[in-house]
């Protein structure tokens, strides 16, 4: 295990390479998925509001 982490003396270069790659890819993915979810929620809310307004207009007239 110690040998594996040491990477023949290059551990200080190998592990940060893998770590930053994982972090950047995960962050971009999570940010993208969150943005999709929040936009979808906004869309559903607006759709419901507009539907209600149209109902109200119908009953008024």
């Amino acid at each position: 295990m110690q040998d594996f982490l040491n990477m023949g003396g290059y551990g200080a270069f190998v592990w940060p390479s893998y770590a930053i790659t994982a972090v950047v890819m995960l962050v971009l993915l999570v940010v993208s998925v969150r943005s999709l979810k929040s936009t979808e929620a906004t869309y559903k809310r607006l759709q419901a509001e507009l539907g209600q307004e149209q109902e109200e207009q119908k009953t008024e007239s």
Partner: protein
Amino acid sequence: MHRFANPTRFLKIATAIQPWVMAVTVILTAVGLYMALISSPADYQQGESVRIMYVHVPAAWMGMFCYAALAIASAVALIWKHPLADVAAKATAPVGAAFTFLSLVTGSLWGKPMWGTWWVWDARLTSMLILFFLYIGYMALFDAFDDRARGAKAAAILSLVGAVNLPIIKFSVNWWNTLHQPASVIKMGGPSIDASMLWPLFLLAIAFKGYYIWVLLVRMRQELTANKVRILRAKQAHGG
């Protein structure tokens, strides 16, 4: 292509294929990482530091691949006004920028122990840095106009002009003296790397492609939903 031009149909297809793309990406990443870190041998010259290659090279390939995709999508948007092309181009830019950034950082982490320096201003490294700035410029220009269509058009033109950088990156190691090693996988006469090192490289390269498609689908769905939100907001403003 025009069968997929309908955003509603695209949303349906994108939602359907996304779980498959996710599964392939996760499996290939797991197997690729196992081979890259555990089962592949150390290099006879570079020792264990060669393992940086398995993230550095696929990231650099993706940085260029995404830019080619971005430029092609932009050309399609400019010429045929395909309604999804701008959306695809816009969704590609952050992924390409991320991969280009990663290739620069992991390259630096590989360069320090192998070359004795984090950075040199040679053609390969400099043209890769320019690629990163092209992505940043594209994203900034896209959002710089109040009229979204104008922003999309200006950014598309920038991306086509910037495409000249791609062959410069590819051939920079042949045209100019550099510390960077020449191509050893995609070259005349076949690859000069052993199969035990080629496998993890290819698996992670395909895993990164899967990741790109995954994020691309998510971001395109977001952009198309955002368009629908804008339409509803406009309706609300007029109706109310």
